């Protein structure tokens, strides 16, 4: 019951929390949808033809067209694309979050995948077995997808909540 006693409102202390508690299932549903769409868009980003150097893949013998710097990585085995997924919504207090990215889908295989995926997204320098240093420029896939998804996810939240 809400009432006014001695100049102060009573009964309001728990009201905000009750409202937030009631919104939790809806917020989780929106997060699930946002995560699914983001992961799907990541897979789309990682699909398609690229315009970099072409070279022969030794085992299969077929030519592989690599990505140019600045393009998302080209598909060779599909491991990176298949590793894209999203986590369950996680609550910290009244804030719900979700993780999207590599290592959360099928075929994720831990630390090695993490280093390789970071090298693709951010670039770096690797050492060839012959000792030469090779500069790898970024082939970003997360950042361009996130920029593209921002307005879509904003609209999801506006519509869903």
């Amino acid at each position: 019951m809400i009432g006014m006693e001695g100049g102060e409102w009573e009964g309001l202390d728990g009201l905000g929390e009750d409202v937030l508690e009631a919104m939790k299932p809806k917020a989780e549903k929106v997060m699930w949808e946002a995560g699914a769409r983001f992961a799907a868009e990541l897979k789309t980003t990682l699909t398609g033809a690229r315009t970099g150097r072409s070279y022969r893949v030794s085992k299969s013998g077929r030519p592989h067209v690599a990505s140019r710097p600045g393009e998302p990585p080209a598909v060779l085995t599909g491991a990176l694309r298949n590793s894209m997924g999203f986590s369950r919504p996680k609550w910290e207090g009244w804030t719900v979050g979700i993780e999207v990215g590599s290592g959360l889908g099928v075929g994720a295989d831990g630390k090695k995948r993490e280093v390789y995926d970071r090298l693709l997204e951010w670039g770096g320098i690797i050492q060839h077995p012959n000792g030469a240093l090779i500069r790898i420029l970024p082939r970003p896939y997360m950042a361009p997808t996130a920029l593209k998804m921002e307005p879509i996810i904003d609209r999801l939240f506006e519509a869903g909540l």
Partner: protein
Amino acid sequence: MRWDAVLLAVKTAVDADSILTAIFPTRRLAATDQDHAVPSLEWHLIADSQTELYEPVILQFDLFLLDLEDLITAERALRNIFDQDEPVSIGGVYTWAEFTEGSTLEVPDESNYFGKGLRFRFMPIRENLRCGRSP
């Protein structure tokens, strides 16, 4: 489109900063895989987009250094220029600018060789909303 103006503005701002020019003799827009120099500062266009009012641009700066103190000083200098609470004029382009994320980069000798990537988001006003006014 505004990403081109942002790239040029960034070069102007970096070349005008005495701390960055002292630490990095090599400062350039990295467009292709090329010879690597240490120390060096490179930047790339990561993504650009368009909203109702702005044309967001994300740039990544790559810092390669042999000295940790220089890395700290250089990152602080970049953030002082490109991480702002209000819109500012950077290299002649009026824009919002904020630091978004950083990551260590793969480098061959992790004990004596530092590689750090820093991403910044720039939000200049949309080209067709400028109406011939200031950049």
